[in-house]
C-alpha cells in the first residue's frame, strides 16, 4: 500500500529537502546514505520513495543536475571541459563525456558552440534547464 495523506506529504517534504541538497551541493559526492539522512528516511527505502515522489531515482536526478550545471558552465565560461567535469562533481572525464553525450545528444565541445545562455533567476534556470532525457537523444 502506498503511503497517503499527511504521512505522504510529510515524506515528500523531507524528500524535497534531499533533492534541494542535490541542487545546491551537486559537486559533492552525495551518496544514498547522505541523502537518506537529510530526508530522515531509511537507506533501504530512500531510492524507492524518492522515485515514487519525483519520477526518477536520486542518482539520475543528481546526474542530470550535474549535466545541467556543465551545460551552463560550457556556455557561460571559458573553463576547459576537464575543469568543468570536475567542477560539477564527476570524477572521471570518460564518464562525464559519455553521460553528457547520452543526455544532451552531442559532446560537450560541440554543445559549447551554442554560445551564452539567456538570463533567469538561477533557481528557475536550474529547474527548467535540467535535461529530462536520459540515455537517448531528445527529439528536437
Amino acid at each position, binding site marked *: 500500500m502506498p503511503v497517503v*495523506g499527511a504521512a505522504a506529504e510529510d515524506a515528500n517534504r523531507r*524528500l*524535497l529537502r534531499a533533492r534541494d541538497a542535490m541542487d*545546491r551541493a551537486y559537486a559533492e559526492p552525495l551518496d544514498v546514505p547522505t541523502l537518506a539522512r537529510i530526508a530522515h528516511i531509511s537507506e533501504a527505502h530512500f531510492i524507492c520513495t524518492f522515485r515514487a515522489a519525483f519520477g526518477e531515482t536520486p542518482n539520475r536526478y543528481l546526474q542530470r543536475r550535474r549535466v545541467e550545471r556543465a551545460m551552463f558552465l560550457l556556455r557561460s565560461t571559458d573553463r576547459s571541459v576537464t575543469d568543468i567535469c570536475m567542477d560539477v562533481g564527476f570524477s572521471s572525464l570518460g564518464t562525464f563525456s559519455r553521460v553528457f553525450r547520452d543526455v544532451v545528444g552531442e559532446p560537450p565541445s560541440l554543445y559549447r558552440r551554442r554560445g551564452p545562455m539567456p*538570463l533567469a533567476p538561477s533557481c528557475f534556470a536550474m529547474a527548467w534547464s535540467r535535461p529530462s532525457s536520459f540515455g537517448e537523444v531528445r527529439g528536437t
Partner: protein
Amino acid sequence: MIVSSVVPMLTAITITQIYVPDQDQALDFYVGKLGFEVQSDMDFGPMRWLTVNLPGQPDRAVLLEKPGPPSMSDETAAQVREAISKGVAGGHLFFACDDAYKTHAELRAKGVEITEEPVDQPYGIDFGLRDPFGNHIRIAQMKQG
C-alpha cells in the same frame, strides 16, 4: 520592450495568492520569521481570509489560502497539498532586500530552510529558501540601475 496596444486599465498588483496547508504555521513563518504583518484575518465560516503584507507596503498583500472544501473537494485538496509538499504548487514569491548576505545570515539563524546560498548574479545577489510546506521563496539584493 513590449508596448501595450490598449490604454492601461489595471493599475497595480494588490494581492497575490499562495496555498498553505496550515494557516497558523504559515503565520509563524511569514510573520515570525520573514517579518510580514497580518493585514486581515477574517473568519468567513468555512474559510479564513488571511492576508499579510510587508511593513510599509499595505498595498501589496499575500493571501495565505488553505486548500479545502467547499472551494475544492477533500480529494482535490489532498492533491494540492501533495503538490505543495513536492515544491510544485506554484507558490513562488520573490522579494528584494538591501543586504543579501545579512538577510541570509538572519534567516539562517532563525532556522529557515535555505535551498541556495547567496550567489552573485548579473542582476544582483540572491539566495533561495522554502517555507515549511515546500513553497519556494527567493530574496535578491538587486543591482542599481
